[in-house]
């Protein structure tokens, strides 16, 4: 059973978002996603100040077995990347919602929560995938 924090928003592509007090948005991949990928061994991060478009490639996470794209959940600009992942990509496995964060974005406009999934809606998605 995947752990699912109630204070985050989610995407169909198994990313999570946290709205920070300063207006930025932190993005990572969900516990379900890290479990499906297995042990992560490399993370390719975007450049700071790079613009990203909702649904576009933003980062790549590579596990022992496979490479997987991480998509930008909103339009915005990269304001920080988790440099610690270069030496320790397994932080995504061990703490996907905390130390395993991947990118922090400054949204280019208002974040439309209707385009994202609530914890309940994401849980439904996971339940459907398991069925």
């Amino acid at each position: 059973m995947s752990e699912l924090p109630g204070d985050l928003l989610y995407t169909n592509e198994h990313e999570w978002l946290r709205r920070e007090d300063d207006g930025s948005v932190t993005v990572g991949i969900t516990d379900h996603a890290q479990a499906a990928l297995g042990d992560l061994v490399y993370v390719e991060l975007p450049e700071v100040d790079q613009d990203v478009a909702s649904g576009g490639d933003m980062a790549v996470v590579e596990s022992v077995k496979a490479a997987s794209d991480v998509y930008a959940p909103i339009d915005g600009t990269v304001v920080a990347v988790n440099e610690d992942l270069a030496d320790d990509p397994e932080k995504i496995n061990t703490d996907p919602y905390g130390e395993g964060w991947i990118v922090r974005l400054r949204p280019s406009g208002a974040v439309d929560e209707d385009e994202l999934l609530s914890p309940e809606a994401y849980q439904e998605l996971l339940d459907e995938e398991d069925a």
Partner: protein
Amino acid sequence: MGKKTAKHHKHLEAGARIVDFGGWDMPLHYGSQKQEHHAVRQRAGMFDVSHMAIVDLAGAKAKEFLQHLLANDVAKLAEHGRALYSCMLNEQGGVIDDLIVYFLGDSRYRLVVNAGTREKDLAWIRMHAANYDVSVNERADLAMIAVQGPKARQLAAPCVDAEWREAALALKPFFAMSAGELFVARTGYTGEDGWEIVMPAARAAQMWDRLAAAGVEPCGLAARDTLRLEAAMNLYGLDMDESVSPLEAGLGWTIAWEPADREFIGRASAERMRDNPNRRRFVGLLLEDQGVLRSHQRVVVEGKEDGEITSGGFSPTLDRSIALARLPAGDEDRVRVEVRGKLLNVRVVKTPFVRDGQIRIQL
């Protein structure tokens, strides 16, 4: 849902992640594939390999048949129980499958072939066996567990009946024996010591439990893949297939050219490839930049046509990315690999990368 091995429910109990592999529902990993990988390199791990097909051959002309069917020569199997790795070629010299053949004695042989090629292998074997009056018996009643690692034989030995245990432990590499209901072979696909144990399917779940209780770590196909890649053992369908000669897949050593009058299938094509100076080479690659090498990535060789990674991935033992690749003829020791539009620096190395727990290349 795919076919299930005799131990399917055991895999689920152990928290396995199940994937489709050649039509079989197989465990990819039970928890951490890196941990499983290290368990095999340092202690002992086990793999359910019951999806592989076991085919028993019998007949007065079984030896002559296999001397025709296989590129390696079963005449090398002078003693009972001896095993031989071989390719089975088509007339064009491409690889239909790679397999292990065991000499059981008295004109009887046992083949272990890949899961994904089972149907075509059986059709091919049966078609040619008809000319030699050799019976072809697929043993779907049997299951197989590979127990691999430096402590594997020691931990698995109590699962062999006392009557046979000493003899089983005395088996030399690439030898096998019957031990009551079991067939114990000192073979594997990890680059470590160990056994492959064949047993009646009904006994497999119990055997799995006993091995687990003895401290053998359940391992999935993901760890099996990184282990065989470090050992530079080819994976059929990636490193070679029906369009590829064993001579361009690092398997030239498995072709028995002598005696020159042994007419194995594909011989004429294989000889032309052997004498072709432009034959592509099959090499190991070590990534020097950050990233992960994967199958089908383009290898850029200065001033030559491109090569291709046939299988690549992350090596838990080296903590680096490694690959097997087919390159144009030459002796370059530095090449580049295109990964998501960037050219990464890669060194050509002599394989295996790892064998018997030891790193065999310069990092």
